[in-house]
């Protein structure tokens, strides 16, 4: 019989093994007990656990006010309970009981984490990809002082990655005792590089097939990448369970998305002066879809007339002031 006690945060604070049929274990505040709990809701002599000959454990409440619970059910005072395993609650103290009869899962396969194994190469690749994108953007603008402009951009990107990585490394150090700099640098830089280059390539694809819907898809992908990056950072830097980590990362992603949405909401629908252009032009790129001819396109303008009519109806319904004034 193995008894483990955990504190309210789930941290194990006691682990004790009892062997031999008929072995008894008393639980309570009394120093004479085998397991002494520091719990004001517990009686001095609270419960008695006996290891039976068949390997099971009998649990008896010693007539306490608050009673004893096994897996959430109160143990009858006179009858007691017999269990193979389970959680016993004494006052507010939780004891996990395991016996020889508790079935065990086969051992987990040992698999080395890909990111951890290749952390040096990955971190270098990610940071390089970020730097390359920054440099590429500056080069596209063809500024008069190209070298200086690129250097500034690269230094800025390095500084940002260093700051972000440093932040997570510090959290790792505080929680787990190791810095994990390369792992965090990998997570951050690969995520950012993926979004950046993905954005550029999406533009290319959008023009090739003349669908601006890729822009929306791109936003969704960026959101997913943000979630993944935050989740991995949290998993690496803390001791939280996967579910808790996911909830934290999800909340952070939602907050970031909300802020991004609020700051761009001014450009949203209902702006009467916004003239929408489709995907950015890519010169001389082999196009995937064939071009239309003029007559075909002009037929589409008729549809546009109806669309404009709908916009008008909508705007009249949204803000009927001008019309109402007349009637």
């Amino acid at each position: 019989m193995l008894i483990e006690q955990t504190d309210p945060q789930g941290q194990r604070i006691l682990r004790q093994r009892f062997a031999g049929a008929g072995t008894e274990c008393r639980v309570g505040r009394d120093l004479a007990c085998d397991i002494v709990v520091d719990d004001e809701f517990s009686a001095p002599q609270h419960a008695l656990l006996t290891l039976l000959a068949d390997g099971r454990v009998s649990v008896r409440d010693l007539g306490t006010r608050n009673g004893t619970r096994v897996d959430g059910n109160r143990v009858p005072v006179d009858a007691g309970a017999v269990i193979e395993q389970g959680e016993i609650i004494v006052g507010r103290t939780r004891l996990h009981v395991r016996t020889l009869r508790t079935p065990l899962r086969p051992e987990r396969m040992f698999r080395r984490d890909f990111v951890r194994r290749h952390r040096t190469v990955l971190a270098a690749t990610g940071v390089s990809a970020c730097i390359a994108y920054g440099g590429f953007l500056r080069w596209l603008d063809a500024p008069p002082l190209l070298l200086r402009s690129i250097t500034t951009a690269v230094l800025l990107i390095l500084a940002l990655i260093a700051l972000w990585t440093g932040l997570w490394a510090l959290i790792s150090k505080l929680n787990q005792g190791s810095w994990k700099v390369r792992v965090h640098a990998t997570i951050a830089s690969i995520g950012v590089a993926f979004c950046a280059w993905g954005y550029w390539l999406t533009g290319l694809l959008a023009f090739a097939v003349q669908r601006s819907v890729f822009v929306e898809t791109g936003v969704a992908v960026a959101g997913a990448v943000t979630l993944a990056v935050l989740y991995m950072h949290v998993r690496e830097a803390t001791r939280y369970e996967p579910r808790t980590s996911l909830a934290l990362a999800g909340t952070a992603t939602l907050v970031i998305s909300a802020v991004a949405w609020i700051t761009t909401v001014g450009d949203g629908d209902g702006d009467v002066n916004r003239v929408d252009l489709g995907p950015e032009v890519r010169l001389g790129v082999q196009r995937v879809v064939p071009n239309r001819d003029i007559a075909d396109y002009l037929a589409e303008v008729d549809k546009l007339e109806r669309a404009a009519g709908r916009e008008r109806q909508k705007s009249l319904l949204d803000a009927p002031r001008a019309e109402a004034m007349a009637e």
Partner: protein
Amino acid sequence: MKLARLVVAVLICGSATAVVAPAEDPRASTEVPTGSPPAQQVPDADAVDAAAVDADIANQELSGDARVRLDAARDAVVQIRGFFDKSASSAFHGSGFAVDDGRRIVTNYHVVAQAVLYPRQYRLEFLASDGRKGPVHVLAIDVRNDLAVVAAETLELQPLKLRSEIPAQGERAWSIGFPLNLGLAITEGVANGLVENSMEQRIHYTGAINGGMSGGPALDARGRVYGVNVSLVTGRQLVGFVVPAKHIPALLARASEPLDPTLSAQQLRKRVTAQVLAYEAEVLEAPSGATRTQDVRGYTLPMQISRHVECSTVDEPSPHMRVRVEAVSCWIPARISVQAGVNVAGFSMQHRILQSMGLHPLQFERQVNRLAEAPRRSGAPAYVAPFACSDALVSLDGFDARISTCLRQYRLFAGLFDFDVTVVGVDDAKQALVSRLVLQGVGFESGKRIMERYLGALQWTP
């Protein structure tokens, strides 16, 4: 050019001042000669006829004093005031004058536009110089020439005589009205003939015209009305515009009956829209025979899409030192005010040819995209609905282009549309065309026809 952008001509209706010339209208620069003084024609001394000089002097004595003009017109001129709902203080004001039998008053359409478009909300009143006041109603409107005829029950004024000839350039002229609500006033100046290069009939008056004088009479030396004060150019000196009086008789003929008071606002707006569309059919759509084009660097660019188009070619300041931009701008300098702040029947077209000077295709592409980015249009949400847009790759004559078309409707005038068409050539990595057609307040069918003509004429021969 920059300077010209500052210049806007505004309607001179008292409180509601409206921009009638587009801010980017290069015509404004021709309207406002700066720097050089107007050329004075000095007559040869020998050629001067002594009798003519005597007659001139007599003429000047007769007409020299503005007081004579004002006294003669005082009983004909009234202030037209608009009130919101039951309010006792005026919302807008302008001027008007009696013609014909003295029972009918001519003013500007833009002075009474609010009352026409919102008949349940605004009422009109006259205020005569002798202090009489009373309600007036609108009899007829002419949106194109910015004229309206109104009448008041029982009001009979001293009518003014009309003169249908356009005054000669340099003829002395006077304008009467109620500037800035300061009371009746007269200003003296010179008529400078019809404005050139414009199919809008406007006489250029060099004299002070101010807000509130809209609808007031413009008089010649004999006290006859040669026109109606209508707008001015702000930020410049004494450039005013006057609608020729020859448009008044036709309107008076239509003004025998008052506008049906049972007409709903919607019907009135339809009537205004119909007048605008008729104007467009005449002006915007007028074909100039074969569309005149101009060849620039292998591109054939439409210029004279319709008869009244004016164009200019400039070497534009480039957004990047390794990109050369040649721009051809065409426009019809016509603006009709249907309502304070809402001008329609505008046309402008700009072709820009970009040339890469040693830029990588990807770098050049970025500059093209930057230039193609549509500038935001102007318009108040109270008057226009949002744009609906569509975008496609289209094969034009000799080249492929991405065309974006955006359309929006006017909230009050269902038959009027704003068009915004952008064409970006995508074939060449060294040279690109960015062309934009902007139509303001046109009918859908006529807008589409202009668009067809425009797209059909674009051509590239490498």
